[in-house]
């Protein structure tokens, strides 16, 4: 075995085995309500092996549930970008705008999704738009802040090229400001997507809408604890994949 395979495969495998062992030990000693790995798999295998079955609103394959959540996250994320990108550019470009709205951004940023959701329900009356509103409000801040930082850190050399050419405001924006800040913007997008995925679980749990988070909460209330673990693992796997996907996009932009 080469040194590289040890590092790439054997060591991560050791980590997984260690966690599974700890989980088994815990489930048999202190936390006896916690299903063991074996039992979790036994009770979850149908959800994983037939990921798209549908027996009822809340009893569906994990693929189907994940799909609902992803669509919801996609809408909230899209709204976050639609709101966050222009706000970020304005913050970065205009001193007056920055002085007017930066305090508000700093104030809104740390507010938890749990605080926004009831407000969304009050405004929209329905759970679906309330969830999307919450995702967008929580997820947009990294986009706002990274875009603003990206615009402010554009090299003076590039701006000087535009000044010497006396480019119009529009050309300055499209030819220099936007492309120069794009790597920062996409870092913001990646972080925003991660946040959106964090928020979805809370939003679904509180609104009881079908999706991974909704399923998790329902199974907790029905005392099917193995399905909580199934949901948690699914949330982790999808979050990881989303981050990787955005990482690829981000790198492509950086090379350009």
């Amino acid at each position, binding site marked *: 075995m080469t040194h590289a395979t040890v590092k790439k495969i054997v060591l991560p495998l050791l980590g997984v085995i260690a966690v599974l062992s700890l989980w088994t030990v815990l489930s048999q000693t202190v936390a006896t309500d916690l299903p063991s790995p074996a039992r979790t798999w036994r009770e979850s295998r149908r959800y994983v092996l037939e990921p798209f079955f549908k027996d009822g609103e809340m009893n569906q394959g994990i693929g189907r549930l994940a799909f609902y959540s992803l669509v919801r996250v996609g809408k909230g994320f899209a709204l976050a970008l639609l709101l966050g990108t222009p706000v970020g550019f304005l913050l970065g470009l205009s001193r007056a705008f920055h002085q007017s709205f930066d305090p508000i951004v700093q104030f809104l940023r740390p507010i938890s999704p749990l605080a926004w959701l009831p407000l969304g329900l009050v405004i929209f009356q329905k759970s679906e738009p309330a969830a999307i509103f919450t995702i967008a409000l929580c997820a947009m801040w990294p986009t706002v802040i990274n875009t603003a930082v990206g615009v402010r850190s554009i090299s003076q050399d*590039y701006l*000087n*090229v535009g*000044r*010497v*050419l*006396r480019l119009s405001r529009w*050309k300055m924006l499209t030819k220099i400001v936007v492309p*120069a800040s794009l790597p920062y913007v996409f870092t913001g997008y990646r972080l925003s997507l991660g946040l959106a995925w964090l928020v979805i679980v809370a939003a679904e749990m509180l609104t009881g809408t079908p999706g991974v988070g909704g399923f998790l909460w329902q199974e907790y209330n029905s005392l099917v604890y193995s399905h909580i673990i199934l949901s948690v693992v699914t949330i982790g796997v999808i979050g990881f994949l989303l981050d990787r996907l955005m990482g690829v996009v981000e790198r492509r932009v950086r090379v*350009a």
Partner: protein
Amino acid sequence: MAYLEVLGLRKAYATARGRTEVLGGVDLAVDEGEFVAVVGYSGSGKTTLVSLVAGLIAPDAGEIVLDGAPVTGPGPERGIVFQQYSLLPWLSVHDNVALAVDAVNPGRPARERRRLTEELIALVNLTPAAGKRPAQLSGGMRQRVAVARGLAMQPKVLLMDEPFSALDALTRASCQDHLLRIWGERRTTVILITNDVDEAILLADRIYPMTPGPGAVLGPAIEVGLPRPRARRHLSLEPAYQKARQAIVDFLRANRRVA
């Protein structure tokens, strides 16, 4: 009055240890179609001088008049080749040059602007690389794109701030030869900033040596009495070359910063 006239230019920067005067009253005169070089140690204020003439920063005192009009801000009639390759990395060679061509020829039809762009890229021998991004080019190629972009501004005077100083010696020589040929074809008015005495003599009609700062000024201009067209070979053996070189080196030595 000369085509480009710089009179009593002063510029100070605020630093941690108070104000330091970088330029202490620079005078400079350039005729139309002339190639003038400014030679000085690094840190003496050459980029500051270029930025002032370009209008990118404002002087504390003094004036700059180009073709009868005082300089108040940046504009393409004072084209510039920056010290760092400030090509836009997200645009191809073609698009970098086209950005300048389109900016200074808004009234002309697209086909004509395209032809102008391609002509300039051919002038710096980069037609095969027209579709490439700056990151895919060597340092010498990048600086030639920067020269093409500078010319694309159709400037009354082209300011070149140490365009080749980041290049290795062989590439630098080849870039200088390109510039020599291009200037022979175009006769654009040029101010070349350099810290390389031989580069200045090879390329320029007149050379201003710069005293090291703080409070840098330009010494009296030294005429380069070499006929044109010039070729690099054997040039350094000419008496006129030796004479110009000696004059510049003597001035720079006499005004060396006392460390």
